[in-house]
């Protein structure tokens, strides 16, 4: 007879099988019902969406149940479960390795499919909605197959195992493990919705602007969640890893950043299509790229072909993901080719010096940036394939190319917000850019006064001031006229996002350029100094439980509050894991790490101090980006829908 905990495996497997059947019939109902315009069949679509979502939810609950009850009959629990893991990290351990993370992906995807099915249930006989639903189910089928095949979290484990190592120690010492992966997945998987509608539009031939309007909020929210997920990941890295950085251009970080870049290009260029009816092929290509890059990124980081501190162990999931990626690309390209005649845009862009011209330039930069990051990420694979030798492409390479790219994007952020649609005259530009340009000069002067040096950081501060001025100008004009309502809508909410991006750029330039570090050998009772701060070792604290032993060095900073960087030894892993301690303020962070070995009986400790300016502004900028995205989701003032969008502007003298 099966124990209660032993039920999780069979229940989970059964739920996944039911979910797969539900998704299969859902796709069949959506496709056949749409093709034959059979309303009875189409009415089944929301029911199948419910079935597959409930099944995925049950499978997820079964996995959580197995984790909570420490059901070591499952191979996955043997891999990431442990009797000594605290309840919170035991709960999050479900997504701490390949199989569980794919299960989380599946849960988010089926929830989105259900949300779409119910939102559009009254219009389910609209062929575009029908084909979009069929696409959502198709993607769902693929992920159900993964969880039943190469990424099965309910596989039986070896007999006689009664405990496990628990999740990676880095995944059990910060609260952000609860938020970062699910939010990132919401953004990642959310991109499936606009992709599905794009496929629906291509199949039905309704490639005008209707599908864009249907999906713009989905695309915006997915982008916002992806942004927020990436920012949370950076914060986590900063607080946990102990090397004082927020971004290491690790392949897994890149795997989320590349689709973010193409999605960012999309949410800008989509405005040109909505307004002018242009760039249809380009927008479809960006959506297809964004979605397919999420799959390619998953392949690169989950199949074991690339090494990364984040990457999960080798598995045979690679060929599945690569095949799915190929199917998406081939089907999308064939559909775009098939609808080529309908995708021809009627309008023209009158001048490069226009809002749409700036969006195009923005798209070129974002796309080239995405290509650079993808190239740097996969280049070691290319070299290994050609020359059978190993190569590492790391942070300095990406930094070298990211700095000029970022500066170019900042420059565009100075100009674009003040550009009108169609064409700008030099007088108009001079009028609108005057005060923003002075903001840039003021930022430069202020930077010099506080001692900033170096061309790239100073140019960043100047352009940051300029771009901030341009964004603020737009917001001031809008709020003067409309009050607080002037903060909402895509253009004005977008300006709040721009201010967030500017703060992040300035904070990154400052923290990367002016970080100072020093190793200090501290003796108890002796005050050491570095960069105008004092550090005094006042003692040690030890904490030990079944999972780990931690020793912290208690250090009083500037004669005030004490901070306690620690070294932990996880019993399952055996190696030392450092945990930094950070004194944060608006102007700078004092980031402390302690070097092993550390002994309670010792009267001294070797610490490393990093003085990092403006790090707090990274998180404030991230918050503003999220807030701005929310503001963008509310409707702003609209032009009259009867106004034509493609009439040419005549020359006025």
């Amino acid at each position, binding site marked *: 007879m099966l124990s209660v905990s032993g039920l999780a495996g069979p229940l989970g497997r059964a739920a996944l099988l039911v979910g797969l059947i539900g998704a299969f019939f859902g796709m069949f109902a959506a496709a056949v019902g749409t093709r034959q315009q059979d309303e009875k069949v189409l009415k089944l679509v929301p029911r199948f969406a419910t079935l597959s979502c409930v099944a995925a939810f049950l499978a997820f609950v079964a996995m959580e149940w197995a984790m909570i009850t420490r059901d070591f009959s499952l191979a996955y629990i043997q891999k990431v479960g442990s009797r000594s893991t605290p309840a919170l990290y035991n709960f999050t351990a479900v997504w701490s390795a390949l199989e569980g993370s794919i299960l989380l992906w599946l849960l988010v995807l089926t929830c989105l499919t259900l949300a779409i099915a119910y939102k559009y249930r009254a219009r389910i006989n609209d062929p575009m909605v029908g084909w979009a639903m069929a696409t959502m189910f198709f993607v769902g089928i693929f992920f159900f197959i993964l969880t039943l095949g190469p990424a099965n979290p309910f596989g039986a484990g070896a007999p006689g195992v009664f405990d496990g190592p628990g999740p990676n120690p880095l995944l059990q010492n910060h609260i952000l493990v609860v938020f970062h992966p699910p939010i990132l997945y919401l953004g990642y998987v959310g991109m499936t919705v606009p992709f599905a509608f794009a496929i629906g539009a291509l199949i039905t031939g309704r490639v005008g602007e209707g599908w864009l309007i249907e999906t713009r909020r989905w695309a915006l929210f997915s982008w916002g969640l992806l942004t927020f997920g990436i920012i949370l990941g950076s914060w986590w890295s900063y607080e946990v890893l102990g090397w004082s950085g927020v971004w290491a251009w690790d392949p897994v970080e890149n795997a989320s950043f590349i689709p973010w870049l193409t999605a960012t290009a999309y949410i800008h260029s989509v405005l040109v299509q909505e307004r002018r009816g242009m760039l249809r092929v380009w927008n479809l290509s960006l959506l297809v790229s964004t979605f397919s890059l999420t799959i390619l990124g998953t392949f690169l980081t989950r199949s074991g072909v690339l090494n990364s501190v984040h990457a999960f162990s080798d598995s045979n999931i690679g060929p599945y993901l690569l095949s799915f990626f190929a199917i998406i690309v081939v089907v999308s390209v064939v559909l775009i080719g098939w609808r080529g005649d309908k995708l021809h845009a009627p309008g023209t862009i009158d001048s490069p010096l226009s809002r749409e011209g700036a969006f195009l330039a923005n798209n070129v930069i974002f796309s080239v940036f995405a290509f650079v990051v993808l190239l740097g990420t996969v280049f070691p694979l290319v070299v290994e394939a050609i020359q059978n030798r190993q190569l590492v492409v790391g*942070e300095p*390479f990406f930094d070298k190319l990211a700095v000029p790219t970022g500066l170019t994007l900042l420059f565009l952020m100075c100009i674009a917000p003040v550009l009108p649609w169609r064409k700008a005259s030099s007088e108009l530009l001079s009028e609108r850019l005057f005060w923003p340009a002075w903001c840039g000069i003021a930022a430069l002067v202020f930077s010099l006064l506080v001692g900033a040096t170096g061309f790239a950081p100073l140019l960043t501060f100047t352009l940051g001031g300029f771009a901030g001025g341009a964004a603020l100008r737009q917001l001031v004009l809008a709020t003067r006229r409309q009050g607080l309502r002037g903060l909402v809508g895509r253009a004005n909410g977008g300006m709040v996002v721009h201010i967030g991006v500017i703060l992040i750029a300035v904070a990154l330039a400052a923290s990367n350029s002016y970080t100072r570090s020093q190793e200090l050998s501290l003796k108890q009772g002796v005050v050491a100094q570095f960069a105008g701060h004092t550090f005094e070792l006042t003692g040690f604290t030890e904490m030990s439980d079944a999972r780990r032993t931690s020793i912290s060095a208690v250090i009083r900073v500037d004669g005030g509050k004490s901070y306690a960087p620690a070294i932990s030894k996880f019993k399952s892993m055996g190696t030392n894991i450092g945990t930094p301690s950070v004194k944060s303020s608006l102007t700078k962070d004092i980031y402390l790490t302690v070097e092993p070995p550390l002994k309670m009986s010792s009267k001294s400790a070797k610490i490393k101090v990093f003085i990092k300016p403006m790090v707090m502004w990274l998180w404030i900028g991230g918050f503003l980006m999220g807030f701005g995205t929310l503001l963008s989701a509310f409707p702003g003032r609209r032009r009259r829908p009867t106004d034509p969008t493609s009439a040419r502007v005549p020359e006025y003298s």
Partner: protein
Amino acid sequence: MMKKLKSWPVWMLMGLLVVALLTVGTTRDSGPLTQSDRIDAITKRIACPTCDGESVFVSRATAAESIRNQVARDVAAGTMSDNQIIGSIADTFQGKILLVPRATGVDSLVWILPIAVLVCAVAGLFVAFRRWKRNNSGDATAEDIALVKRLLGEDPTDEENV
């Protein structure tokens, strides 16, 4: 008065001011780096030989620790430049630990391809604008002109009309 302020000579002066200030900021002394700063800068460019793509700066692995100590000794000795220190360590590991690919052979592709793609993209944009300009020689209709006048008369802060 304001119109004069926004004339092109003022913009030229602003441009010159920015260039002058940037030159001052770029050329002035940023103060001495600590040995630790220099060690950090060097170890950020070296890959940990036993890790999964991490730099020696980031990694806490034993091999990374050993290289960090080697770099610290070289920096303390004060006889080699940053590139010489990195070169000597790269020679020991036969180049496998450089985080920046060399600009020779197959490795150079990682530098050439981004530039090639950027040039192609900018050229494509240039061609597209030329074609749009060529296709855009028709005169505006009375309806177009009326529309533009109406739009120009609208609230400039309207998000769809800015």
